[in-house]
């Protein structure tokens, strides 16, 4: 039994799951700032990204060191590789939260369109649910939960398409049109967060089965607008 290796793998995984918790906080913060038009909270979300980045870099360094020293194989190797990818997906999610916070700051003086705010609330809640499911599937090596992410992602994609429709019907007021354009990017950020959660699910499936497969084939997607 390679006790040191096992210990290092356990520590890496818990650090990764902690990073996931940080991302959840960043997402909640950015959605709350958007909803309440709160530029101070948006600033906090932006600053908070440094913590996620620190965690990300720490995990990356520890994985490099573990690979160099321990030469993991088979299931251990797959775990390390899956953690390497998942780490990157989580860091990207946090970056999208920062983008949402920055856009919130740019438009906080404009009265938002309520239909769109409802859509964002729903998309945000779905993304949170997806991140939780992704982390849970990874921690429990649960491929069924990982695969369920595809359906949740479809809901986020649908929300994204709804937002596009709303923006087109916003009318001719230049301020509200600017707001609408910014909100397209917010919607896109949430949609991408959902995609990264699915990607983490794919890493879980790789970890368990040893074979990598994409849950959905983006290059042959039926819809072009998702």
């Amino acid at each position, binding site marked *: *039994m390679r006790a040191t*290796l096992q210990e290092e793998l356990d520590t890496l995984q818990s650090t990764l799951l902690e990073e996931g918790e940080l991302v959840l906080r960043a997402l909640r913060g950015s959605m709350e700032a958007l909803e309440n038009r709160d530029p101070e909270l948006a600033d906090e979300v932006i600053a908070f990204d440094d913590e996620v980045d620190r965690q990300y870099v720490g995990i990356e360094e520890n994985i490099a060191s573990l690979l160099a020293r321990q*030469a993991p*194989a088979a299931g*251990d*190797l797959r775990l390390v590789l899956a953690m390497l990818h998942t780490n990157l997906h989580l860091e990207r999610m946090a970056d999208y939260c920062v983008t949402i916070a920055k856009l919130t700051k740019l438009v906080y003086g404009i009265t938002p369109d309520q239909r769109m705010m409802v859509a964002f609330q729903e998309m945000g809640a779905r993304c949170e649910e997806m991140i939780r499911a992704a982390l849970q599937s990874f921690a429990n090596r649960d491929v069924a939960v990982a695969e369920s992410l595809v359906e949740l992602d479809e809901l986020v994609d649908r929300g994204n398409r709804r937002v596009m429709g709303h923006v087109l019907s916003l009318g001719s007021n230049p301020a509200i049109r600017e707001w609408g354009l910014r909100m397209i990017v917010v919607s896109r950020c949430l949609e991408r967060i959902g995609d990264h959660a699915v990607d983490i699910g794919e890493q879980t499936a790789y970890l368990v089965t040893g074979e990598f497969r994409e849950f959905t084939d983006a290059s042959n997607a039926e819809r072009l607008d998702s």
Partner: protein
Amino acid sequence: MAEPSNTPATISEVSLEKLVQRDDRGRPSRAAQNVVFEVQNLGVSYDGSPALKDVSLEIYQNCVTAFIGPSGCGKSTFIRCFNHLNALIPGARIQGKILYHEQDLYGPGVDPVEVRKRIGMVFQKPNPFPKSIYDNVAFGPRVLGMTGDLDGRVERALQQAALWDEVGHRLKSSALSLSGGQQQRLCIARCLAVEPEVILMDEPASALDPIATTRIEDLMHELKAEYTIVVVTHNMQQAARVADMTAFFSIERGEENERSGILVEYDLTEKIFTQPSDKRTEDYVTGRFG
């Protein structure tokens, strides 16, 4: 666009995955035209105690095949079967078959000397003869009467063993004046001088430092273009680095608690080290057992 090359690719250059056919359980089975050895239900016992039981596998041409496993799993016993070395041990008994290009290696009328000429061996500790570098390499050809252009043969063997640049100017020096790594490459050159088809290596780098080990591993990589290489190694990373195919052997306890070696899993090296099919292989390559 580059001109298509007419040189036939070696088996490793073509995807080995394509050549290795699999049975309904996903295990490698026959890859017809490239089989050098076909081992069928091989068992070895010493004075009645089984050392190795019921091993079946195929060794493919121009591949490096590694045998890994814990001490006592029979991997050295197994490799020694390929050139009749077990026959030199009193009390050793071999059951089953090894077909070498479809010919029974242990069939009647097979000359062990002829077998060892075609299937050479390099051992764990470098074992040069207390003679000059030249005489070491020329030894096999002289014994076998292959004396035409002996100088050319010696030079070619030393070149192939990546030793010529270091010793070409002092062929008359004693082989024992060489470093351990050089001595091992000399033993490889001695083996190559009789133009074998297969080179068996039993822990060829375990007595060498990391730099000399790397040279031996690089050499294995180069030599497989012309030879078929079978290597026993304790060093799993070495198997992962050099081998195209890897066989994992383990120890099984019988009804009376007697230990014997068994073949657990044999597959592409990449598969063994990323996604082994058997839990025992997984436990061994991840260091949880053995």
